[in-house]
């Protein structure tokens, strides 16, 4: 038996797998742009296992990458030559405090499981991502934004405290008050400073039913005016919107005819309510100026939270789930958002709807305290994302265009959301984080001095002779 394998197996209570036992999905993330092979895949049993694993990696100069559902698309949740840690193995839901409205969870808990567990008590996490199939540790490491973020910020803003195993192998409990630098380093920290193993999440009480108004806009600027008014009204529990293309035939682009679209903007406004006490439609919609009021949907709140499931099932059935996903999401300043989106959408073919979509989410610049989740200045912001599914054979001809979309967003003042495909140069990373970058470098030096954690994405400069698996 490989001595290293024997030593690793001895150190852990959890399971260790070797390359002959890896699944194909462990070599890729949802982006399907990179394919890396680790030396070991580990299913930890506890935070103690994670601590032992980090000690093992430091001693043997191996890199360590933790993954939840691996929904990110760049060089995250994959590992080359080191240890890939399947955090989903740590999936215990702990104590619920109905007075303080909190729940303790291990980092590998999938949000969907937590949502259903809490729903029996009429509780729900304050912010949920559209895709509930991702893990708590995964989205906290990214920020985690959703249709209630305009009220509550990111999921990372709704953590009371958490346990993090640092790159030095120390298990540290941290919160905004205690060991705050590690706490805010770990939130949206892309796993750079430690492995989140447990979190206590802030909850809220939910009402059992939702009513959603499906409004449609044909004018982006009117839609944005209404979105801002809706955020400020204090009325709505959830706000969600998209770009929806209506194909218009073909036109020349750089001399070659391409399909193009006129874009419309569905805007879904949701309120929760108690059974038998439906909301007053006219009062809620007063002052809004949609092109059309398409549909009004009543459904149990738990079903509302799962509303994306049929879409994802369709993508899986159609096979586009297996395509490349170079998603480009950003947060735009309110002032430049319409101009940027108009330019980008003018060049976006309606085919993006095949296995993908265009997200637009009105947001507040005042709801997040996260230090690593970078957003532009301003009270109001607009999240904007092109979420394509690209057949592998088209990647060569399309990647430059996607990079230009990202560059254009940034020239309009945007900050990229980092779960997508990000291909920054080191200087572009520094520009992204601004003054925070120097603080992150200092955090890396302090909490992961051997640079073993999640190498390959953020351009921390490693000391020579440090862990394997770095790009």
């Amino acid at each position: 038996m490989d001595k290293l394998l024997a030593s690793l197996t001895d150190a852990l209570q959890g399971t260790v797998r070797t390359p002959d036992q890896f699944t194909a999905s462990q070599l890729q993330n949802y982006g399907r742009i990179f394919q890396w092979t680790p030396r070991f895949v580990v299913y930890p049993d506890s935070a103690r296992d994670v601590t032992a694993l980090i000690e093992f990696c430091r001693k043997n100069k191996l890199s360590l990458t933790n993954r939840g559902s691996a929904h990110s698309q760049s060089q995250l949740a994959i590992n080359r030559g080191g240890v890939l840690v399947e955090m989903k193995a740590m999936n215990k839901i702990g104590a619920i405090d109905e007075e303080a409205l909190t729940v303790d969870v291990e980092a590998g808990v999938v949000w969907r499981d937590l949502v259903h567990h809490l729903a029996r008590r009429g509780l729900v996490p304050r912010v949920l991502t559209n895709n509930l199939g991702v893990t708590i540790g995964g989205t906290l490491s990214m920020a985690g934004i959703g249709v209630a973020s305009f009220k509550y910020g990111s999921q990372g803003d709704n953590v009371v405290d958490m346990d993090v195993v640092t790159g030095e192998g120390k298990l540290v409990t941290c919160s905004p008050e205690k060991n705050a630098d590690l706490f805010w380093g770990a939130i949206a920290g892309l796993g750079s400073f430690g492995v989140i193993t447990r979190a206590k999440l802030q909850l809220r009480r939910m009402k059992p039913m939702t009513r959603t108004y499906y409004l449609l806009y044909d004018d982006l600027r009117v839609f944005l005016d209404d979105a801002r008014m809706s955020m400020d009204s204090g009325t709505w529990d959830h706000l969600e919107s998209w770009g929806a293309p209506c194909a218009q035939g073909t036109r020349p682009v750089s001399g070659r005819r391409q399909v193009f679209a006129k874009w419309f903007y569905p805007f879904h406004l949701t309120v929760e309510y108690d059974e038998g006490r439906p909301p007053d439609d006219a009062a809620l919609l007063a002052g809004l100026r949609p092109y059309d009021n398409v549909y009004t949907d009543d459904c149990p709140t738990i079903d509302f939270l799962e509303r994306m499931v049929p879409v994802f099932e369709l993508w899986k059935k159609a096979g586009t789930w297996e395509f490349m996903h170079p998603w480009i999401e950003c947060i735009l300043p309110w002032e430049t958002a319409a101009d940027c989106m108009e330019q980008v959408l003018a060049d976006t073919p309606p085919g993006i709807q095949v296995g993908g979509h265009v997200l637009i989410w009105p947001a507040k610049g005042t709801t997040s305290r996260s230090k690593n989740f970078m957003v532009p200045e301003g009270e109001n912001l607009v999240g904007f994302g092109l979420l394509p599914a690209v057949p592998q054979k088209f990647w060569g001809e399309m990647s430059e265009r996607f990079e230009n979309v990202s560059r254009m967003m940034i020239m309009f003042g945007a900050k990229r959301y980092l779960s997508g495909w990000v291909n920054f140069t080191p200087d572009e990373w520094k520009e992204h984080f601004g003054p925070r970058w120097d603080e992150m470098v200092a955090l890396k030096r302090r909490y992961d001095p051997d640079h073993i954690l999640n190498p390959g994405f953020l351009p921390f400069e490693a000391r020579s002779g440090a862990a394997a698996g770095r790009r």
Partner: protein
Amino acid sequence: MAVTFGTPAWADALTAEINASSEYRNAAAKWGDGFNGNVILVFDADDQMAQTRSLLIRLSKGTCGGASFLEGGTHPEAGFGLRAPFTTWKDVLERKTMAATAILTGRMKVDGDKMTLLKHTAAHRALVACASAIDTEFPAA
């Protein structure tokens, strides 16, 4: 028949291409509306071109009022400038490099209000497409 780059005939051919292009007419319908839309393309001297030259293109609301090559890199009638080494321009005109990439990565410098330029990206792309459509003979280095 190929037209020699840098000649009055090439500038006239570009004017004709622009005015015949529905892509340009649609994409640039608002270019120059309320601001000076004349663009000067500056071809900086490099190992393939001994002397810096430029091309002033008079543009307004989807049409071209004429184009002419100039010595030097500035002109008082220009509202915007795009500047790059001649070799970069040649790559763009031969469709080896996307003009957008050159601009967004800083290999092509913008003189003028960058935001205005960003709001009309399709117009500039269509302009470059018109220039690329000309059967061009580049002078030997």
